[in-house]
């Protein structure tokens, strides 16, 4: 065993930070689920549904991206 404990803690911390991506993944899955169901019921509304779905996905994804930024900060800045 060699190397220092701070480096190990950084790697573990970055990995733990990414657990938060779970929420974003669930959210994006739910919104796509709803959008696909909506399109299946009313295919004419596909364009509007898709636009709104992408907006919703962007909001859900933002949280996961915060986790990613925290992980990147831990890895490359501190």
């Amino acid at each position, binding site marked *: 065993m060699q190397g220092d404990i701070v480096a190990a803690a950084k790697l573990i911390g970055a990995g733990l930070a990414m657990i938060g991506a779970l929420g974003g993944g669930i959210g994006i899955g739910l919104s796509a689920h709803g959008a696909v169901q909506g399109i299946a019921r009313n295919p004419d509304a596909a364009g509007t549904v898709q636009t709104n779905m*992408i907006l919703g996905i962007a909001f859900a994804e*933002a949280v996961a991206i915060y986790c990613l930024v925290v992980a990147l900060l831990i890895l490359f800045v501190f």
Partner: protein
Amino acid sequence: MNERKWRWGFNRWLVLLFIVLGFFAAKKYPPISPHVQLPAERLSHDPLFTLPGIGEFYLTNTLVALFLVDLILLAMAFAIRRQTSKGGLGMLKGVSGALEALFEGLYNMTESTAGKWAKEIFPYFATIMLIVLISNWMELIPGVDSIGFLEKVAEHGYAAQGPFLIKEEVAHGAEGFVVIPWVRVVSTDLNFTFALALISVVMTQVIGIRAQGMAYFTKFWNTSTLFSKPIFGAIDFGVGLLELISEFSKILSFAFRLFGNIFAGSVMLFVLGALVPVFVQSMVLLLEAFVGIIQALVFGMLTMTFMAQATQGHGGHDEAHA
């Protein structure tokens, strides 16, 4: 009769040739895992200029990329201008035609969301979308992020052989080299994404004030029902304060969304390129092209939606809080 004849073609052999060449190149110069750094690398040792109170300005590699993006946008603008001034408003050909179709779609989208304010809002939407799209797609060009100066570092460096880095860790404590790329995708610089986010959010307030006058501020400081309906009035007042906070969190989420997506994408490209030098990276390039256009659309569309909401005033309480 309709069976397709085998054609020898040309491009497929070119692709095969490049794959085979890639194998040999990866044997000769094994790819090294690159040096990842969050802030933009400086290309000059002396600052370009110094502003009192703010600090020193360096020529960074993301600034070079921003100039390239601007040049591409200007070239596109001039190409379209030449076509329209020559033949009037006839059929546009080539890139200009594609751009015309794109803009028509975007404008219709703006009009369906913003109504009569579409003319005011559309320029922000389209400008932000174009600049973000082109800067995102710059990461797909080979050589961006990988060609540059060699710089001496104290640790984690690699040995250099002529202009290349070779996969050979230098002895611990000795001096090694890392690549400081000349061009790095501008969306991987937090300064750029924060600047765009600030422009977007500040102009949202400006458009809101222009649409509603001083009544726009009742969204944040809502005392209209505070005395007539005590409990719900207090709740409305609290919601107004939350709106104020959400304006600030919009800046953060705009900036970090674009930055995080593109930075993570380029780190993924580095790492996959270092692990599997041949062929695999090409697949990820496709994914990154998709992520690039989605992020550009999302940045522009969120700006457009927020601006449209700011023009509408009260009544729309179902707005999203980013």
